[in-house]
């Protein structure tokens, strides 16, 4: 048995992290200096402060005519369109991600195909949502349709990644047990695979829907429908009350959807 050490000797025996800490601080410090050099802090101008103040003031007093009307220009209609874009986009993304996820799972297709699958997903993920939006506006013309396509394609990356994780976690024992009872392939998929994956898949899709609603609120900037165009238009015209109405629309809808999504996902996680 090892001889008992005193507290001091124990402390001395601790692994030394000095080098790592010094290195980390050096790297962080030099990167900070490098970044600071690039960012010139603008001199505080009166105009900027006035603008921030008027935005904050109009947030307390938004354009109520827009906020509570069902006319096409009103915020409720626009938010409804935004959520619709996100909803259809999520469904499209979920459907497109499903086959990709099965191809990219190592325990289903093996190393080579999973590598190809993951590579293509990474390539899709590289395109910023905005660039995809601009591309689809060229394809389908401006409007919510372009937004749906954009959101659908942009969702593939993350959804595939999350799907792959749950597919690779599959408990093969269940399938072997079904094999032993004489189940055929269809029954094996129905009773062995789908119950293991469905909760995870639904939960991931709802989570992505939440993100997509946020993404859809800004797609209007490139002309792909939703509330973004109204917001930017009002802001560039310095119409703060209208902009504030749009901001409240986004805040309320995003908060409500986040709340519902968290509730459903918690329930799905606990029923596993």
């Amino acid at each position: 048995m090892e001889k008992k050490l005193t507290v001091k000797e124990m402390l001395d025996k601790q692994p030394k992290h000095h080098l790592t800490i010094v290195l980390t601080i050096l790297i962080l410090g030099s990167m900070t200096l490098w970044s600071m050099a690039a960012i010139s802090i603008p001199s505080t101008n009166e105009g900027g402060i006035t603008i921030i103040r008027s935005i904050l003031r109009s947030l307390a007093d938004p354009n109520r005519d827009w906020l509570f009307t069902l006319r096409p220009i009103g915020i409720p209609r626009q938010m409804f369109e935004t959520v619709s874009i996100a909803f259809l986009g999520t469904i499209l993304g979920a459907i497109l991600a499903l086959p990709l996820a099965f191809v990219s799972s190592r325990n289903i297709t093996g190393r080579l195909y999973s590598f190809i699958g993951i590579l293509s997903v990474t390539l899709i993920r590289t395109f910023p949502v905005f660039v995809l939006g601009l591309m689809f506006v060229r394809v389908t013309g401006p409007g919510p349709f372009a937004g749906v396509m954009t959101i659908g394609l942009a969702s593939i990356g993350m959804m595939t990644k999350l799907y792959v994780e749950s597919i690779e976690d599959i408990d093969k024992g269940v399938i072997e047990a079904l094999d032993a009872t004489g189940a055929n392939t269809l029954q094996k998929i129905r009773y062995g695979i789908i119950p293991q994956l469905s909760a995870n898949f639904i939960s991931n899709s709802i989570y992505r829907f939440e993100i997509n609603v946020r993404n859809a609120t800004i797609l209007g900037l490139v002309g792909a429908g939703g509330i973004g165009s109204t917001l930017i238009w009002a802001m560039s015209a310095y119409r703060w009350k209208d902009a504030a109405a749009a901001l409240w629309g986004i805040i309320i809808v995003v908060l409500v959807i986040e709340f519902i999504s968290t509730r459903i996902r918690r329930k799905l996680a606990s029923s596993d």
Partner: protein
Amino acid sequence: MKNNKPNPLTLLGRRLKNTSRKLTFRPKEAATPASADGATMNAAPLLSDKIKTTINKLTVQTKNVRTYTLFDGTTVLEPFSKTPLIFLILGTLSVISWNVTNINLFYLFSRFSNFFDILWRMTSPRWSYFSTAIGPMLDTIQMSFLGSLIGALLALPVAFLSASNITKNRFVLGSTRFMLSLIRTLPVLVYAAILTLAFGFGVFAGTIAIILFTFGILSKMMYENIETVDLGAYGAIEATGASKPKAFVTAIFPQIMPSYLSYSLYSFEINIRYAAILGYVGAGGIGLLFDDRMAWRRYQDVAILIIMLFVVVFTIENISRYLRKRLS
């Protein structure tokens, strides 16, 4: 549902629930079909319980429900599957959204070749554009680095303020959490758009937008993490006579530091992607070039931008993933 005495049947039922076919239980001795459920209901039944009871009643009244008899003589009903209902709701919502968003499949198929046309033109990148794009790309990295760093530093104290096991004052807890969720609702791009109006176009506005975004998400991740911290060690060190701040640093910090660093790295990873589009509203970085090149239909240049972004994101993601693995 709250059940005071665990019925052996419910225990068995729970175990059976985990099998692929879900089952509900109706004890043999139960006089009325729904009483098994009704007995456990409290004085003011919840709406969800009411619905469950109604569904159970309906299930029993329907004659063609499959029943199973278990080894101990209990009859078990096959429950109604919720799947058709979910599909019905999803279908209805899809149809509504379909109409709202004016989807035109014919249009899509006839013009989808344009999409591949754009992609095809991206396959021959114009390499000379690289020298023009490298500057804004570095700006993007600097913006997201500084934004993540400052945002992460600001997030830690606020995370302590909004962790329910550290802050006991309910008012402080509620107000900080509400503020955090307000900050998180608005997209980075909206912040950037507002800030460029206030501070003028350029990297500064973008950096502030990234700081706000990082602060919002990191504070939430951290307070959820802090709430899982074991406070026993804190009490133990305090009992040895250490002062409160000292006990805090020795007991709490080592527990949250690894996840704090790992979350900060993670937010740096995602910030690069966000910083890349901020230029669209004039907040500096590579986004401005994306907008410009797309508007001029110079897809060969867009390809260069995408390749650069890919290399940067890939490198940073892998370094960060390596460091995060070391941390955990």
